[in-house]
């Protein structure tokens, strides 16, 4: 079981326009924690920085400043090749995340072999079949021999989940795992993720722009606006009792027929351009905080959160 502590993560990109160079801050002092058995939802619109955070957590990019601290249960830091074994990702596009040239078996077997989870071809094959069965893909023997284009979107995403768990990952970054799937199979895949999380006590980061699934699938929601965290707290609290203007805007803008035919334009009530993203409301600490201030405030918030959670 593994924990992840992200502290004051900052990622800058240099934009070159002709001879001018400007700096784009995609992630601005973001802190969050992933703990075993809990799902944290990272909610924000496109361009808010959530995909960048995913890339940093999976070491596809390195941060400009800030730390990503991953530790095992006994406190040993996770580094090097162990990192790849512990932290894995499920990509958004099921049609692009599997190599059209290789069989499903190859996709699940490679992580097993890289991290030496199995020895020999027979054992690897057996384990591949077990993993496919675990994600409800049966008959596993047939699916393993197929190629990605022969499977449906939902099946492909299940293969992606199997691949991510193959190395024995304890931390799963799910980057919009169901947004490109057909509506009627989304809940099935989310259910699967939920079940696997409970069985393996995974720490899951669920990145999405869909508030409704964020609320029901995750324990905690972190709202990102223009690279900064503007609100964090238990899922129900953030959705049903939003404090920050941006969260209120999101909650009002999301279609919700059960709210009644309230076709009020959210923009009429809250001016998006005037949203202040230098403050963040933390439901755990029950207070407003300054964003962009040094790690001290993050540490305080975390200890307050732990205090609240254990209380």
């Amino acid at each position, binding site marked *: 079981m593994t924990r992840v502590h992200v502290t004051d993560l900052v990622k800058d990109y240099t934009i070159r326009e002709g001879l001018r160079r400007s700096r784009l801050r995609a992630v601005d002092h973001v802190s969050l924690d992933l703990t075993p058995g809990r799902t944290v939802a990272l909610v924000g619109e496109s361009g808010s920085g959530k995909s960048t955070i995913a890339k940093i957590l999976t070491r596809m990019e390195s941060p400009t400043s800030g730390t990503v601290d991953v530790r095992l249960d006994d406190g040993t830091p996770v580094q090097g090749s162990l990192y790849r074994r512990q932290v894995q990702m499920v990509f958004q596009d099921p049609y692009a995340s599997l190599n059209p040239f290789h069989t499903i078996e190859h996709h699940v077997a490679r992580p097993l072999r890289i991290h030496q989870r199995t020895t020999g071809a027979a054992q690897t094959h057996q384990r591949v079949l077990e993993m496919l069965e675990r994600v409800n893909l049966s008959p596993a023997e047939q699916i393993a021999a197929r190629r990605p284009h022969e499977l449906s979107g939902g099946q492909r995403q299940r293969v992606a989940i199997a691949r991510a768990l193959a190395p024995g990952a304890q931390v799963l970054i799910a980057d919009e795992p169901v947004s490109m799937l057909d*509506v009627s199979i989304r809940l099935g895949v989310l*259910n699967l993720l*939920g079940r696997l999380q409970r069985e393996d006590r995974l720490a899951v980061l669920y990145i999405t722009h869909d508030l*409704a699934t964020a609320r*029901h*699938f995750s324990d905690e929601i972190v709202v990102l606006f223009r690279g900064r965290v503007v609100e964090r707290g238990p899922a129900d609290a953030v959705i049903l009792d939003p404090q920050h203007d941006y969260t209120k805007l999101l909650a009002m*803008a999301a*279609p919700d*027929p059960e709210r009644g035919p309230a076709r009020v334009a959210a*923009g009429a009530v809250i001016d998006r351009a005037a949203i202040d993203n230098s403050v963040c409301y933390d439901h755990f600490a029950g207070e407003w905080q300054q964003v962009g201030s040094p790690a001290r405030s993050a540490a305080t918030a975390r200890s307050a959160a732990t205090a609240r959670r254990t209380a």
Partner: protein
Amino acid sequence: MTSTATLAVGPDATDRDAVLTIRDLTVVYEVEEPVTAVEGASLTLHRGEILGLAGESGCGKTTLAYAVNRLHRPPARIASGDIVFHDRAGHDVDVLALEDADLREFRWSQLSMVFQGAMNALNPVTSIRAQLRDTLRAHRPRMTRAQVEARSVEVLERVGVDPRRLSSYPHELSGGMRQRVMIAMAMLLEPQIMIMDEPTTALDVVVQREILTEIVRLRDELDFAVVFITHDLPLLLEISDRIAVMLRGEIVELDTSQRLLREPRHPYTRKLLGSFPSLHGERGAFIRSGVDETAGPEPTTEVPA
């Protein structure tokens, strides 16, 4: 062919006149093993109504929209059915019988369409002004330059885009703005029907809400009918007067939004409704607790041995 007996149709909530009648439309893709993309679709669109067309990928909703516009290309063909447009002026037009000049005149001035991925349908190398002007010139060749400019400005203001953006190029506008420009372009000739195919799918939820508000407001002002095609059922439930649910080429349910939400009749409609966890309510809470209700393992019986 679906008969109205199997189709779960509710009584029309609006008693206004019909502006478009589609009767028993069937569209077939003439490939090696012909595929029936739309089967016996019948529906009536009323003046000023917002009709939602809901369904998942491959259900035929886009094919239906294209067929109504006569934009479908071979190997797609209309195998049977009627599409009748009832003009405000009082006469009826058989859309399937239109040819050439009449068809061109019908398209865009009576019925226009905002396409899926409309943001990429703007020509990247010409300015917005030029594109609006081209559309106007094609249909109203006698408009003067001043009139064209005035109409372009008017239509952009209507959708909430700063008229100064006329000189911009598409890449200089945000996604939401490009979508509004596409809607503006579809409104240029004040059509009586606007078909919108997933117009807000690629936009974030806040911009989507703004655009939806615009569409409803424009409908209220100008009284055109809208066919709104999307897979996002909650969205339709909020803005549509009636909703048609499509599955595998057939319209399986057609009813007012309220009744569809409260008493869905077709099992697929129920399944679709159940797939959207409610934001403020309790539906969907099972994901966290782990009690499986609607969703089980992927139906793998489709995989042949």
